[in-house]
């Protein structure tokens, strides 16, 4: 096992969605920059959109929506806890990004006049743009990486960031998951785009990799940002999704809703007005199950044959194409049977909820020179298009930072500590297998953190996570691949502790099921109309604190404030057309 040292201007960690965009944009901003895209898998097929995506969930397109409307919608959907400046930066960059992707060869649905065929899925405005041929999006990105001459290193797992004495970023450390060689990569500026913490809760199937998120996204980015001293935000606002039971992927109401599909209870009755994923929507799902009216289903069996064929073509070739195979195995034909749904295990993901690394409107974290973009950066409900827009912002900002700063000196102590931590499981003669430690850790996450959240349970959970911290020093990896799993367990444990501490800190309930606290059932705006932050302090302790919400750029009318809290349909027999305006 060897150690290699490298030098770059900009290093982007994670080559899924935001990462390739950041790397291309850094290079376009200044072609002289040495830009490295570092990826633990292979950039060709990595990340959340490995098999493409079936649509944009948050397109802000002139004639259909304005940036102000979008900022208002997301502010309300996230119960007021947003830095509107960051959401506005997304909204204002949204359309230009769609046009750029269109030029790059991503095909969006257009109507007969050539206008984008925008659909309504959100509670208030229209932001969903289908891309029925979106399966090639990774190829489109790869072509741009090659054209911009971005350097790519695959199969290197980043594990810690290097910081300088003055606190700014100095580089990235990691190892090769095939050789276990250790890499020290100095950089003037770094972009973290490592995806969600998607391997946090244990799927009900018990299969460690049966997650909603691509399981490579194990929370590495959250852990790296935390240990570098960056501020994280909204970690108590969990990601919990309504998914196909057992398959644990989207069914998917965003695609089928505009075609006439909808969520029902076991009686085939609609119980929510809007299928847009929000904490309140998940709360109503939870209530329906608690009330004995479950399971909850996605209903398509009332639709016409040609509609169902169109849905099948989209759902079984995009994003998670194997769901067609799953349905076939269960004998679920959309024409005859509703799709059984369940409530997922928890994760951290700002792409869907709001839990992530704190960033400003240029994707800058609180660590100078360090940026974050995509699912791991706290810009609420940012989805794929938000990852692209923030990838662009991060790439451009990192290019600017690189122009103004030299390489920071490397602290040899940090390198030595990290190399020792990374190689330890391989050098240990015997010990615990990573998959068993991971299974137990994630089962404990389910037992103690799955909402509704109970104070005493979360406190016990913290004790268990502390005990598992000691098990980390007993992990044994037989070869480099298993070493990758061992180091991922470290990151998952950090995320579990952050999720527990952040949840205990916010002593109110907010965001529906995402942060439903049994001991504090009410929303308490007097105390908690603020961001709840978390970071590692100077003594190495995990601390929580409040951060005031910046004055809104877009005011919210009192009448709109609670729009997302009134999702339950009052009379179940109400006509669907009234409940869900087209």
């Amino acid at each position, binding site marked *: 096992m060897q150690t290699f040292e490298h030098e770059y201007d900009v290093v982007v960690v994670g080559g899924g969605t935001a990462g390739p965009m950041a790397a291309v944009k850094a290079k376009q901003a200044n072609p002289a920059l040495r830009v490295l895209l570092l990826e633990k898998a292979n950039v060709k097929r990595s990340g959340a959109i490995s098999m493409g995506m079936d649509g944009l969930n948050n397109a802000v397109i002139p004639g259909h929506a304005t940036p102000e409307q979008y900022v208002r919608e997301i502010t309300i959907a996230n119960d007021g806890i947003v830095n509107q400046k960051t959401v506005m930066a997304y909204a204002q960059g949204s359309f230009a990004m769609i046009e750029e992707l269109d030029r790059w060869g991503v095909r969006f649905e257009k109507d007969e006049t050539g206008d984008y065929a925008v659909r309504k899925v959100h509670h208030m405005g229209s932001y969903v743009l289908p891309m029925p041929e979106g399966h090639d999006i990774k190829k489109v990105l790869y072509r741009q990486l090659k054209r911009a001459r971005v350097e790519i290193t695959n199969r290197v797992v980043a594990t810690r960031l290097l910081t300088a004495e003055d606190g700014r970023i100095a580089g990235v450390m990691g190892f090769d998951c095939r050789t276990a060689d250790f890499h020290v990569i100095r950089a003037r500026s770094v972009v973290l785009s490592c995806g969600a913490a998607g391997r946090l809760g244990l799927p009900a199937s018990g299969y460690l*990799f*049966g997650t909603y998120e691509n399981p490579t996204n194990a929370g590495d980015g959250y852990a790296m940002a935390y240990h570098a001293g960056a501020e994280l935000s909204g970690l108590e606002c969990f990601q919990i999704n309504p998914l196909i039971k057992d398959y644990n992927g989207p069914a998917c109401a965003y695609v089928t809703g505009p075609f006439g599909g909808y969520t029902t209870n076991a009686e085939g009755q609609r119980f929510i007005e809007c299928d847009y994923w929000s904490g309140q929507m998940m709360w109503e799902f939870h209530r329906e199950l608690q009330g004995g009216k479950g399971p909850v289903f996605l209903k398509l069996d009332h639709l016409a044959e040609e509609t169902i064929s169109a849905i099948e073509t989209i759902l079984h070739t995009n994003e998670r194409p194997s769901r067609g*195979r799953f349905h076939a195995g269960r004998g679920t034909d959309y024409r005859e049977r509703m799709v059984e749904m369940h409530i997922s295990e928890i994760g951290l993901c700002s792409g869907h909820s709001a839990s992530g690394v704190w960033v400003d409107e240029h994707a800058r974290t609180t660590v100078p020179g360090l940026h974050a973009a995509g699912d791991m950066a706290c810009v609420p409900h940012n989805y794929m298009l938000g990852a692209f827009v923030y990838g662009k912002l991060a790439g451009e900002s990192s290019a600017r930072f690189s122009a103004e700063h030299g390489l920071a000196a490397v602290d040899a102590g940090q390198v030595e500590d990290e190399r020792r931590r990374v190689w330890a499981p391989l050098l240990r003669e015997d010990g615990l297998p990573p998959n068993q430690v991971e299974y137990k850790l994630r089962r404990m996450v389910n037992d103690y953190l799955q909402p509704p959240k109970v104070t005493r349970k979360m406190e016990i959970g913290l004790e268990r996570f502390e005990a598992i911290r000691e098990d980390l020093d007993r992990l044994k990896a037989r070869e480099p691949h298993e070493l990758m799993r061992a180091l991922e367990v470290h990151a998952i444990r950090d995320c579990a502790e952050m999720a527990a501490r952040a949840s205990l800190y916010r002593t109110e309930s907010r965001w529906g099921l995402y942060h439903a606290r049994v001991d504090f059932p009410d929303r308490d705006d007097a105390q908690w109309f603020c961001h709840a932050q978390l970071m590692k302090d100077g003594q190495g302790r995990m601390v929580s604190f409040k951060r005031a919400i910046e004055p809104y750029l877009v005011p919210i009318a009192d009448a709109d404030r609670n729009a997302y809290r009134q999702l339950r349909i009052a009379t179940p027999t109400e006509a669907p057309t009234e409940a869900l305006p087209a």
Partner: protein
Amino acid sequence: MTTIAPLAFHPSAVPVTVDADKCIADKGCTVCVDVCPLDVLAIDLVKGSAYMKFDECWYCMPCEKDCPTGAVRVDIPYLLR
């Protein structure tokens, strides 16, 4: 000298199967191994074909989709099926 860790053998039905007659790994092809996000596939150098080495599958299907000869098949992992 390294001692062997006391681990029990834990059999697992793997979801990715490779048709050895169609697989051209013996001609140097490593496409499925390259594209797998979780790096769970490997080449059996003796048999000259790819196989699933680790039961850590997201059933995402790049291996099947990108295989030039249609040798790879992704099933839903048994625990989820």
